[in-house]
């Protein structure tokens, strides 16, 4: 469960990236986050994974108030979240395999389990054949998919994705979204920030719309003509 209660985020520069944002995402729900460039999407996601802290208001994850979470517990929070970063955040000093294995090593998985899981995740993004390459040798879209594989490799209960399909062609974007949907179907809470309105329209999920830091939309996407089971009362 992810809950924002009147959250405002003002950066040191004075920039107010989020203004009084409130919403709740139930466990196992899937939603989109959209809005213009600089609207505050990445900031909202950063607050959830404690890359930034709210200036005022409260962020709750699984009935835990993040403001009250001690520094010591941040790593445990982050291990619950698979995150696809807008700028990939891959390490170019090691192979694709090692990049994807990182969350497992950090969490102290046994070496015996790691290989199986990493290959499974790489297979899902169709990049198993590139496991030995350096991410720098991959195309922009391939790098993005490595980031997705790393986010899902330890099957976290939360999945946050920031513009995960910005460098992907429409067909691949749809496949990746399908992948997220499958994760959601086994209970993972999914929140995806994206500009791809057409994709949102096709997916029939709830969407949060930001404008200049304020939440101006919170419900099924207006672009969606037909709603699925999840959305049928909107």
């Amino acid at each position, binding site marked *: 469960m992810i809950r924002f209660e009147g959250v405002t985020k003002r950066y040191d520069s004075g920039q107010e990236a989020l203004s009084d944002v409130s919403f709740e995402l139930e466990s196992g729900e899937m939603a989109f986050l959209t809005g213009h460039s600089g609207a505050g999407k990445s900031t909202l996601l950063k607050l959830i*994974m404690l890359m930034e802290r709210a200036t005022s208001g409260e962020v709750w994850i699984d009935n835990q108030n993040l403001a009250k979470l001690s520094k010591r517990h941040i790593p445990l929070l982050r291990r619950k979240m698979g995150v696809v970063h807008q700028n990939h955040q891959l390490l170019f*000093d090691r192979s694709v395999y090692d990049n994807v294995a990182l969350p497992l090593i950090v969490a*102290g998985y046994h070496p015996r389990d790691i290989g199986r899981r990493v290959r499974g995740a790489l297979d899902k993004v169709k990049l198993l054949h590139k496991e030995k390459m350096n991410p720098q040798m991959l195309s922009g879209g391939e790098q993005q998919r490595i980031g997705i594989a790393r986010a899902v490799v330890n099957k976290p209960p939360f999945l946050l994705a920031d513009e995960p399909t910005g460098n992907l062609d429409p067909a691949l974007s749809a496949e990746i979204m399908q992948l997220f949907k499958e994760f959601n179907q086994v*209970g993972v809470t999914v929140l995806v920030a994206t500009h791809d309105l057409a994709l949102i329209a096709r997916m029939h999920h709830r969407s949060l719309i930001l404008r200049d830091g304020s939440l101006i939309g919170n419900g099924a996407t207006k672009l969606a003509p037909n709603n699925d089971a999840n959305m049928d009362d909107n």
Partner: protein
Amino acid sequence: MFKSTKTNRRTGENRSDSGQAINTSSHSLASRIQSWRSHHRLVAKQSIQRLLVTPVSSLMTILVLAIAITLPAALNIVITNVAQLTGQTNDHVQMSLYLQKGLSDTQGIKLANQIADWDNVTSTRYVSPQEAKDSFKSMDGFAEIIDNLPENPLPGVVIVIISEQSLSVNDAEMLRERAAALQKVAIAKIDLAWLQKLHAIIGLAQQVAAVLTALLAVGVVLVVGNTIKLAIDSRREEIIVTKLIGATNAFVRRPFLYMGLWFGIGGALIALILINACKYALTNAIESLSLVYGTDISLAGLGFTNSMTLVLMGAMLGWLGAWLAASQHIRALEPR
């Protein structure tokens, strides 16, 4: 809010099921300890490999450390040796009685034995004119001159060892006057001032050495700390990404702590080599001195226990430097 919530709750349970599945599958205590251990081994190995990738800069740091460790260690050894060299005068004050010319060796020995019974006197030794001449002859350049002399110009000498413990400077002076008053004694010499000076110097040197040791220990910590800081800077991205993925500070810090450890141990080992090389060179130099002084001096080196202590200290200081740098700089490297 949404009817969908119900559906989500159901799948939410699914989620926690799969979450538990993860926990049980790979987070049992035994398995965790095992992977923790193998991770330590791996990190220790990798951090050595990383040092070997940049051999010149690693060597540079290790050399600086070695010099910083060698300096106080060598100074301490010199002080120990000097104190040992002056060992007899350290525990005892020595008085020289130059006898009147013309006294026979028997008379000299008798006098020596007589004085040995005085209060505060530990022992005495008679040096005959011939012995004195011989020891002079062994000094370079004097042989010819002394051989050239018509007769041995040197007097007999009685060396009086006085126990220092019970001895004030006044007592010593009184003892000297008593000896000087003896008929057979031409001159009685006791070098208290020199002795006091030497003791003061050794004391000062020990203080300087202590301060220097402390300073250079701080220096070692700083040098390791700085090197680790550079290593952290160059692995900034890796640290940030690893933290983003849920690595604890301890996990991120680990390779750097090992690196500091290796630096400290490496520096101490090279320092040991340097110290022993210095000792070897000094021993050669002192051997000639020994001949002149007529005593047989063997330099006290470090010995096994002290060597081990040195390495241990190096390791600890290296680790400390790394720890300080790592805690400070890694905490500052929060992902943004």
